[in-house]
């Protein structure tokens, strides 16, 4: 597929074709501006390609009407570099909010949220506010929020970008554990340490083109 942003001199993604299997763990690497984030946006149906198709979970996202987007998003979890937590809500409330706004009852939240917070290693810190948590812990809350709805796919856009190396590795262990539950994990990063340690599939993008697609790859 190809995506050209208006006013851009060259396409952000130029004739890129990638296929990701269910349950895979894929790194997208490449320098800033190479088009990695555009891929995430396309998977989220935030932007649509000018040419080509994006198929997620067997559904053609390209032709999806925008009113169907909310429901589609429920099958995808998202984690970002800046955590995007609500500052006036506790860890528990942040995760529960994600459930409640898609129509789950408080009873469901009471059952599921402690479970998922335990899974990400935040047992006992449910009632802390984001500013009372470390960066790594905040990112764990964000992962818990992304995963609480048991999505088929977890998108992570530079999730370790704001974290120190040790904390980054802990977050990666967490993502790895989530991947083992059968969730497909797509992660955009330029953290070479992490890529080299994980030894997973690596897709390298440069100037909108795929220059490498390697199983059990390294940062190169």
């Amino acid at each position, binding site marked *: 597929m190809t995506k050209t942003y208006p006013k851009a001199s060259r396409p952000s993604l130029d004739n890129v074709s990638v296929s990701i299997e269910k349950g895979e763990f894929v790194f997208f690497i490449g320098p800033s501006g190479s088009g990695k984030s555009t891929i995430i946006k396309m998977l989220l149906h935030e932007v649509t390609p000018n040419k080509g198709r994006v198929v997620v979970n067997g559904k053609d996202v390209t032709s999806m009407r925008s009113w169907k987007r909310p429901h589609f998003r429920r099958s995808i979890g998202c984690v970002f570099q800046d955590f995007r937590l609500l500052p006036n809500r506790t860890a528990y409330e942040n995760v529960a909010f994600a459930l409640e706004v*898609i129509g789950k009852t408080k009873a469901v939240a009471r059952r599921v949220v402690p479970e998922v917070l335990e899974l990400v290693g935040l047992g006992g810190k449910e009632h802390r506010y984001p500013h009372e948590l470390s960066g790594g812990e905040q990112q764990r809350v964000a992962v818990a929020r992304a995963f609480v709805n048991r999505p088929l796919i977890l998108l992570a856009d530079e999730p370790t970008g704001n974290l120190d190396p040790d904390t980054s590795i802990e977050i990666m262990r967490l993502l790895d554990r989530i991947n083992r539950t059968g969730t497909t994990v797509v992660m955009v990063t330029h953290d070479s340490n992490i890529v080299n340690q994980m030894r997973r599939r690596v897709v390298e993008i440069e100037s909108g083109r795929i220059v490498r697609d390697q199983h059990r790859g390294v940062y190169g």
Partner: protein
Amino acid sequence: MRMKYVLSEVLVGLWRNVTMTIAMIITMAVSLFMLGGSGLLYQKVGDMKDLYYENVEVSIFLKTDVSEQQRTDLDSKLKGDPLVKEVTYVNKDEAYNRFKQMYADAPDLVNAVKPDQLPESFRLKLKNPEQYKNIYDQYKDTEGVDEIVDQSKLLDKVFGVLTGIQNFALAIAIVMAVAALLLVANTIQVAAYSKRREVAVMKLVGASNWFIQAPFVLEAVVAGLFGSILGLLALIGVKLVAGGGSLAALEGLITPISWSEILLTFPLMAAVGGLVSAVTAWVTLRFYLRV
């Protein structure tokens, strides 16, 4: 739980920006008050037109030297005219009697006038009072006719004033509505900005569009409804004040506005207030939130 969430969001939203909310409600109230008032006036003018025009007459005054032949010709012509509902002939004596009645409190004037000096006339009721012009054109040159007078011309002036007041009220209603509209748009933008983090998360995790928008739209609708209630109270206040005071003198001329008529304008005001707010909020959100 979802309904409860939405409602609590609405209240929190209105309270968070309470000065803006008050401004929004007041402008809305003034606009709807003017709209309601203009609606009532429109109704009244309609009622009064029916009442007055029903009784309005066109008088064809005859020349003093009119001949017997001319008079009977005119009489039969008028009786055969499809525009005319009813013809009454008023001879000099009857005219004098009417004159005496009319100026009973000015005996000098009555004494100075002799029955002979008053013209004979035909009094016509028209099927449609607005067709006066046709009658006038048709008979003004008939022999023996001196002058044709239409009472409805006077009424037209009265109604012209009333319609003017009504249009003025409507114009103010529209201007205030524009101000209210802009305030709603602004309030919604501020509200959406102060909740941008929540909205971003909601979009991310796939909350439905209506669920994201509902609190904002309802916030505007609640303000609109409050505005319409205030507008209704203002109308009631005007009736209370005017009923006992200055406008009571006009009671005979203007048919009084009943309580039920005032209360019946409320659904109109509430519907306009609520709907305009809702649509404005929704359009604002479409530009501002892009959900």
